């Protein structure tokens, strides 16, 4: 709580309205919300099936994959960014092929921001969904099978509704982590205003020039994320 209080005490309240309406602030905020939401979407699409594989099937090497999934949790985000560059960079393992085949580059683009955020935030979703899957009774899926449901139908109509609170909680955590992402983003996507400069990056940049601006940006980030998390928590995750 103390750092938060520090922000409030040092905030330049008198010049606040002008500073808030500066175009750079709004652009960074919009980019942050957009990329965090897209990254959460990517994590849902990739992470829920992955969690299902980990939680419901006994494929060989499952332990290894589970360990791999949690790597971004323990990896310093900057290292994650470097790793992403090595893979998706113009000379990277996949990046070179993407560039020559499609003329498409990821680093230093808005899509790159989404990739960096998704990379870092994915474990939060996978761990939370896998936990929900393990807690949900697998015999409901058996009951569905005896009623004629294919595995996919059983997952969609029975398992997914059962684990919905876990998925929602995971998505919220994932979103929050993506919103605050700094290290991987600045390494992999750079710091271009309007394109890859998200709020945390803008705060860092402002800190070097104008402390008051950094404080204002930080406050905006805190207020927006707390407001959104509180709203989501009441709506979805209130039961958990």
């Amino acid at each position, binding site marked *: 709580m103390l750092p938060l209080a520090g922000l409030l005490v040092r905030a330049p309240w008198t010049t606040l309205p002008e500073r808030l309406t500066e175009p750079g602030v709004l652009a960074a905020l919009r980019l942050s919300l957009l990329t965090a939401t897209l990254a959460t979407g990517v994590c849902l699409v990739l992470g829920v099936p992955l969690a299902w594989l980990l939680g419901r099937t006994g494929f060989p090497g499952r332990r290894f994959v589970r360990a791999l999934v949690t790597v971004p949790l323990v990896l310093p985000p900057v290292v994650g960014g470097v790793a992403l560059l090595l893979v998706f960079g113009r000379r990277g393992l996949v990046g070179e092929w993407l560039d020559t085949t499609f003329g498409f580059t990821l680093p230093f683009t808005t899509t790159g921001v989404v990739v960096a955020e998704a990379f870092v935030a994915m474990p939060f979703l996978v761990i939370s969904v896998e936990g929900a899957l393990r807690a949900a009774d697998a015999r409901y899926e058996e009951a569905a099978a005896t009623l004629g449901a294919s595995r996919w139908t059983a997952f969609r109509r029975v398992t997914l*509704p059962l684990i919905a609170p876990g998925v929602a909680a995971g998505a919220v955590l994932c979103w929050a982590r993506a919103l605050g992402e700094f290290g991987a983003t600045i390494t992999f996507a750079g710091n271009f205003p309007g394109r890859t400069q998200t709020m945390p990056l803008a705060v860092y940049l402002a800190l070097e020039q104008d402390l008051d601006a950094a404080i204002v940006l930080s406050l905006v980030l805190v207020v927006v994320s707390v407001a959104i998390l509180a709203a989501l928590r009441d709506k979805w995750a209130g039961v958990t």
Partner: protein
Amino acid sequence: MSLDAHLVVRRESFTLDATLTAGAGEVVALLGPNGAGKTTALRALAGLIGLDGGHISLDGHRVEKVPPEHRHIGVVFQDYLLFPHLSALDNVAFGPRCRGVAKTESRVRAADQLARVGLSEHVRKKPRQLSGGQAQRVALARALATDPQLLLLDEPLAALDARTRLDTRAHLRGHLAGHAGPTVLVTHDPLDAMMLADRLVIIEDGRVVQTGDAASVTSQPRTDYVARLVGLNLYRGQCVDTRAGIAGGFALTVRSPVTGDVFVAFPPSAVALYPERPEGSPRNTWPATVTAVARHGDALRVELAGPIAVAADITPAAAVQLALEPGSRVWASVKATEVSAYPAATNV
């Protein structure tokens, strides 16, 4: 429609190897102690676990390799497994929906099925709002809504309290009679088995030990488990005419003459106890030691050790007169007319 199955499932500590048949409209109860393999057999029939050998044929079609969703088998699970996020109606409509019936049509069928089990007023309720008996009926309606070729019930009444159990048992009996295909139900409760089933298949340690209708199983048990279930003392012996040798030279005189390897059975209520060797002694008399005394309904059940282990039911008054307690020495006797002997040849 008929079922003909030979189920072989191997586990580390246990092997199920059971043959099971059921005709159209026939209700077969798999009865056995916990861990006997009843539920394993049911899950194998449903396709939820694979067979390690044998076959399952439904109406002449081999289905043991068919996945559960294509088997057309209805299952009522022990704790029902109603989908908690769906209403009773949508639970019942789930099966028809999965089999490709349109949404509205599925719901019409589901409502119809729920009406048949007497739950028209509860279609909108979620499973957690239903009582145990109602949930059981929804589970039955859900299993029947897909018009299964084979109906399977796993301990259908075990989760209910005693009172609900009586009503539900009668209700279930009516519905099982109305099902055209074969029904296999699994239970450890002999009363449920006898009330609901046309035929009993008794399973112990993964093997079928006895089959038959309720009357033949109760009067002629073939294992200790069945004998205990139906409350009879049971022994294996060699019979010549009416004299059956049981163990270590001990013999009992039986009601009617048989020759060969036999089972010898008599009810605990047929055993009389005396403090001294009875006068004008009947032929079946032996000294015994009391090992335990416990209430058993209106009577007292006395466990006796001696040449054979015997359970005897006596009145509390008689117990007081005999001053029975563990360690007491008494004389036990049973009339030959109460002792039945039947061939032990294994034609299960």
